[in-house]
């Protein structure tokens, strides 16, 4: 009946798999580097892969530029890609000049926006992550905070700006305050969900070992929740970067949002378009950096 288990006595060594020294895949990729022996087919397949990953995005960007150029050529006041390119060359020749608080280089503006996001986001993490842990761990807290969060979360963070102005009496902390408000929800919710979804197996291990609460938090809960937390952080940063532009338009001062508004008042539309690209690129970089971080902390599929 169970022939396999009877005839398989001394097969212990089978379970310790030898690691292949050179994986076939690696060899295939490195092949084009060598002088081509019969490598014509391999070479063209690599080129095809590169082509497939580079060509479509390139087409997309070209399409964007074409539509933009077409719209600009139709007349109206939108400058075309070339005009913007020329303006950008001038602008980025000296991004960190400083002619007083109302006339600073674009570099300063981006940096001060990033600073506000950093501070507001930092406070949100300081409050939101522990709160998320508590909400996830205790059902009572979950039910207690649920109505509050459900009520406040859909509110645009800009609605909180006047409250910030009222409390802090200054524009700068008020903008940071809106960032705090918009960053905190994804952080609370994702952390709480992460805590609730810690696999029962891991909790059983904790119970059998009878670990103390500190060890449960540091050795089991925290590592297990970390991927969820990083997702929360990524969502928060994304929203914060969206909100800061709008907040700064309202509060003024130094910052990319204010800069956009200022350039609108100066009617330098090229600069507004440049700002749109800068905001987009910074947002993209933030997102990618956090994705990279998240990959570092994802543990294979157990």
């Amino acid at each position, binding site marked *: 009946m169970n022939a396999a*288990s009877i005839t398989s006595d001394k097969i212990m060594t089978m379970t310790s798999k030898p690691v292949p020294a050179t994986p076939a895949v690696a060899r295939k990729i490195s092949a084009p580097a060598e002088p081509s022996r019969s490598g014509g087919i391999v070479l063209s397949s690599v080129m095809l892969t590169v082509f497939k990953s580079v060509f479509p995005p390139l087409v997309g960007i070209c399409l964007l530029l074409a539509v933009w150029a077409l719209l600009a050529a139709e007349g109206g006041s939108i400058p075309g890609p070339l005009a913007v390119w020329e303006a950008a060359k001038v602008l980025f020749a000296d991004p960190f000049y400083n002619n007083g608080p109302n006339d600073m280089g674009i570099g300063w503006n981006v940096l001060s926006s990033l600073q506000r996001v950093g501070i507001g986001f930092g406070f949100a993490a300081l409050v939101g992550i522990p709160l998320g842990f508590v909400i996830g761990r205790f059902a009572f807290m979950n039910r207690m905070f649920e109505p509050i969060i459900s009520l406040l979360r859909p509110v645009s963070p800009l609605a909180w700006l006047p409250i910030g102005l009222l409390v802090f009496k200054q524009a700068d902390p008020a903008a940071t305050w809106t960032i705090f408000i918009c960053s905190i929800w994804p952080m609370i919710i994702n952390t709480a969900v992460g805590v609730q979804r810690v696999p029962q197996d891991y909790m059983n291990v904790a119970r059998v070992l009878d670990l103390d609460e500190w060890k449960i938090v540091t050795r089991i809960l925290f590592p297990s929740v970390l991927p969820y937390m990083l997702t929360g952080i990524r969502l928060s940063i994304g929203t914060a970067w969206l909100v800061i532009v709008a907040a700064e338009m309202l509060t003024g001062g130094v910052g990319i949002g204010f800069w956009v508004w200022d350039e609108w008042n100066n009617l330098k539309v090229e600069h507004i378009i440049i700002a749109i690209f800068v905001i987009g690129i910074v947002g993209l970089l933030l997102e990618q950096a956090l994705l990279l971080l998240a990959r570092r902390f994802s543990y294979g*599929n157990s």
Partner: protein
Amino acid sequence: MNKTMVKVDKAGMTFDTKKGKFVALRDIDLSISEGEFVTLIGHSGCGKSTLLNLIAGLALPTSGNLICDGREIAGPGPERAVVFQNHSLLPWLTCLENVLLAVERVFGKKEGKPKLRARAEAALEMVHMDHALHKYPHEISGGMKQRVGIARAFAMEPKILLMDEPFGALDALTRASLQDELNGVMEKTGATVVMVTHDVDEAVLLSDRIVMMTNGPAATIGEILDVKLARPRDRLALAHDTDFVEYRAALLEFLYQKQVRKAA
């Protein structure tokens, strides 16, 4: 006769479900002696894992009581180590760290770091995993993970080792080699073991006693088979051993004649 390690007295388990009460286990009486290897076998859904969880303390009985080494079982504890079916290693810790976590809990107050580490390494060496001390669980095969799971349990020097279908998720060849390894470890340590399985060969090969469970709901102990095969046991020699064949037949008869599973 050795002293009694675990005594199960009229234990029953009833779950509250949406459809009302569900009686999983009833009238379980069982006593397990020190150094004994007891297997729980039965069709799926017969409550054998529930009984193991009761001994582990991961669940508490709704009637009757369980005693381990003179004390009532009121919750899980490291003196009753569990080897889980899906190994349950923590993926962010290396093999060594996984074992160390358990070792630190049990011996951390009395022993220094080097001693604890030596214990963890010795346990991994016992299951022939000393080559992968610093590997993460996702870097090793399923069989190796289960070895580490077994090492973690043994390293705690528990009074009793509870195994819930420890080899169920492994292929037949890997399973056989782990069974042999477990047999070896048993002979070295003389541990008390309760194992849940649905593999007839595995049960006969490893056990001193096999507890056959009736079908659920309201499952209970049907028959108990004493396996009096000499140790150490050799898989190949036993294949032609008449006693072994008899024991196997008795199990098969119980499972497929007396407790025919209704078509699922």
